[in-house]
């Protein structure tokens, strides 16, 4: 749904022509008219779909719930989709981002995109419903046809100046235009200009890293965490269109925005809720938003916050300074670095196992909500770690997993 670090890769929504019965329910339901059909197939326009998931529950067949990770410049056009009898096999592999501290999970090893795409499909690892008590999200207030303009009011680098990873904290202000958001939601940015084929660039999605009441409390602004993309997934040099555009913005510049998007990766709004947050790199954006929300409510909230955060080194960890200043009795922070010199590689899932007693205790509580954000490849590793922790403590992971999903207490945001 969201991609906090947007590269040239998007998650494209597709309909399985073998399972679809052409009932028109999805087309009727879609709030942004992204779905259309001919006498043969129902198809989704990649440049219009905002992944709001409104079409998922009403689909009687499950055909609607298919996703493919594709290069942004190579999304399947509807003209091609209309000719399909079956979904295309997943294209050639997209390899792991070399820059993030996630061990390649066994299940994905060598599986390339097929395994990645499979995990997006109907056997989604997390919940497809929001947690109990989540505030009702606004989605699709602004679309490709009618985007909203925002003004850049801040743009600072949040990784150390001498490291390769260049991550920016960008603050956008919407002035008098309403832009109600919740932690965990994302927005789309329309980069100016056209691609090599002369088409306007597709929107890139970014998770919010600020809470609902503004990056600056009481202001109509939001913050994004954007990593400058300088290499593709294979490591070849490439200039990410939108990330470079955003990282180079100056104060006062105007940005075209669509959204908000996202109606499941949301935080429970009761003070006893425990948040178990697991992220890598710019996957920290929604965790920062939720943490800040809880910090602002701190006087009234006594639920526990536990964070597992992975990066290559401490100096590449976005927001490292401010994060370490948070009081220990407010949030339990666990950092995993995979490239610290003279130290063995450590991944978030290793740390979760080390802290197994506390993780298991949290998972015991019906008030605990789990959030995972980062590269797709961390998904399996995190699930394996949660399973191992549960089983070590005599709990039935499969039953708990089902419970977490059905109660909207386990959420993945991976890309």
């Amino acid at each position, binding site marked *: 749904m969201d991609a906090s670090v947007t590269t040239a890769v998007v998650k494209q929504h597709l309909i399985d022509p073998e399972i679809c019965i052409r009932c028109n329910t999805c087309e009727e339901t879609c709030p942004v008219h992204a779905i259309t059909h001919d006498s043969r197939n129902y198809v989704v326009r990649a440049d219009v779909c905002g992944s709001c998931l409104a079409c998922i529950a009403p689909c009687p067949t499950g055909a609607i719930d298919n996703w493919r990770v594709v290069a942004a410049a190579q999304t399947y056009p509807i003209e091609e989709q209309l000719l399909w009898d079956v979904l295309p096999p997943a294209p050639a592999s997209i390899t792991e981002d070399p820059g993030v501290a996630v061990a390649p999970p066994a299940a994905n090893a060598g599986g390339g995109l097929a395994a990645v795409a499979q995990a997006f499909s109907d056997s*989604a690892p997390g919940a497809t419903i929001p947690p109990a008590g989540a505030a009702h999200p606004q989605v699709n207030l602004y679309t490709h046809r009618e985007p909203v303009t925002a003004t850049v009011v801040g743009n600072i680098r949040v990784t150390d100046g001498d490291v390769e990873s260049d991550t920016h904290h960008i603050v956008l202000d919407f002035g008098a235009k309403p832009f109600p958001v919740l932690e965990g939601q994302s927005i789309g940015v329309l980069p100016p200009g056209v691609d090599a084929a002369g088409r306007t660039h597709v929107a890139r999605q970014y998770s919010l890293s600020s809470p609902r009441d503004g990056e600056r409390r009481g202001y109509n602004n939001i913050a994004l965490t954007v990593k400058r993309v300088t290499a593709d997934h294979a490591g070849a040099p490439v200039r990410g269109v939108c990330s470079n555009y955003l990282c180079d913005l100056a104060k006062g510049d105007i940005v075209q925005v669509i959204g908000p998007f996202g109606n499941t990766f949301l935080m429970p709004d009761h003070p006893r809720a425990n948040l178990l947050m697991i992220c890598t790199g710019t996957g920290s954006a929604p965790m920062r938003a939720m943490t800040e929300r809880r910090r602002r409510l701190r006087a009234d909230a006594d639920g526990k916050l536990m964070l597992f955060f992975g990066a290559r080194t401490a100096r590449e960890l976005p927001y490292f300074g401010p994060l370490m200043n948070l009081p220990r009795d407010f949030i339990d922070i666990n950092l995993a670095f995979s490239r610290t010199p003279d130290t063995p590689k450590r991944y978030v899932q290793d740390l979760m196992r080390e802290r197994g007693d506390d993780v298991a205790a949290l998972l015991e509580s019906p008030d605990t909500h789990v959030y995972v954000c980062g590269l797709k490849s961390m998904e399996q590793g995190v699930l394996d770690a949660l399973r191992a922790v549960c089983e070590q403590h005599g709990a039935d992971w499969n039953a708990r997993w089902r419970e977490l999903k059905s109660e909207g207490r386990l959420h993945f945001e991976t890309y």
Partner: protein
Amino acid sequence: MSIDYAQKIPNNVNLSEDRALQRALEHWQPNYIEWWREMGPDGSQDFDVYLRTAVSVDPSGWAHFDYLKMPDYRWGIFLAAPDPARQVNFGEHKGEAAWQDVPGEHRANLRRIIVTQGDTEPASVEQQRHLGLTAPSQYDLRNLFQVNVEEGRHLWAMVYLLHRYFGRDGREEAEALLQRRSGDTDHPRILGAFNERTPDWLAFFMFTYFTDRDGKFQLCALAESGFDPLARTTKFMLTEEAHHMFVGESGVARVIQRTCEAMREHKSEDPATLRALGVIDLPTIQRYLNFHYSVTIDLFGADQSSNAAIFYGAGLKGRFEETKRADDHVLKGMTYPILEVAGGKLTERAVPMLNALNEVLRDDYIKDSMGGVARWNKVIEKHGVAFRLQVPHKAFNRRIGTLAGHHVTPDGQLVDEATWQAGVRQWLPTDEDRAYVASLMGRVTERARYANWISPPVVGINRQPLDFEYIRFN
């Protein structure tokens, strides 16, 4: 637009603000429950069924899943969200604001349209009431019950309109909807196809594919109505109707899949051999298809109908996807070809389109039906089997309209009585076919097990696994 479940009758129409209406419906409700207990799914009233219930009409709320005993299903009254700018989009009133009340001059016609639609809903529940005793799996049994409770809700939807907008006449019609019985010689249901039996699961799948699709097209035509409450009611019903067609399309596909597996495994196309293996041979599936298709296309009514012209001209009932069409939406002076027998052969004749609107809807339906049949053929093709299912000719086995009384073969040859009688056993299910299919109907109640004559589904309901406990039999 959330639905108030605290009330006796869940609704999103502010029922509590109209006390007289609320009382009238609360009076009808026990009679409905009594009808459900008498004529609803046989012997299943105590099962906990994993059912979908609407809790609001927006996308996030209308598919809420939980275990439920069917008589406790929260049947209610749900209308799609209103569009204050909506207009009458066709006919002589085109361009006027959509009506929020019944125009006096169209009262009788609207009531008739609503009663005819409403009558099909309980009828199909009655037709299917014994099927639960022979379900091929928990998954299928759950799907049957889902179809049943939603047909029940569709009856509620029509009864609401009758009570709310048609006064005493409407209340009497609402009572009568509970009095008629499918197949009853004294008080039959209004339309022919709804008095046929649904004796086995192949018939059920064919019925949900073909006959519920007629429902879809009728509802689509009514969702265009200038009478806004009818349009909003049917619009929401369509979302539920989609599941019914899914049950049919995937059900037949799974039967075909199983048959083709057996054909490939045993390298045989011989119906007798395949029957000995306990699967349904493709020619039998073709005969079932021929029967359900021909009976269903009769439901669209006579090919030329002054009623259809009146309904359209008055803005009561539009065409399928009326607002997506590019013509003038008045249709005066336009023609449409209909089939008839002249000079001993089938010919086309152009007639005023307004009079041929039943035929227009039937042809749209036929196009839509053929899509699914083509998808069934893909399953056969995948197995390397040469057989292909075919949709019979539009004139085959018709009982209504100018083609009634003529004998036309599935491939469109006009034949005499003797040729018809000689061929009919190849074209329509025989008593032996039905007896064979009936012989396969045994009940499978264990989780994750499926009867031998049908494949498991590709995906579970609501993304549940295939070994999910869809029914708790208690």
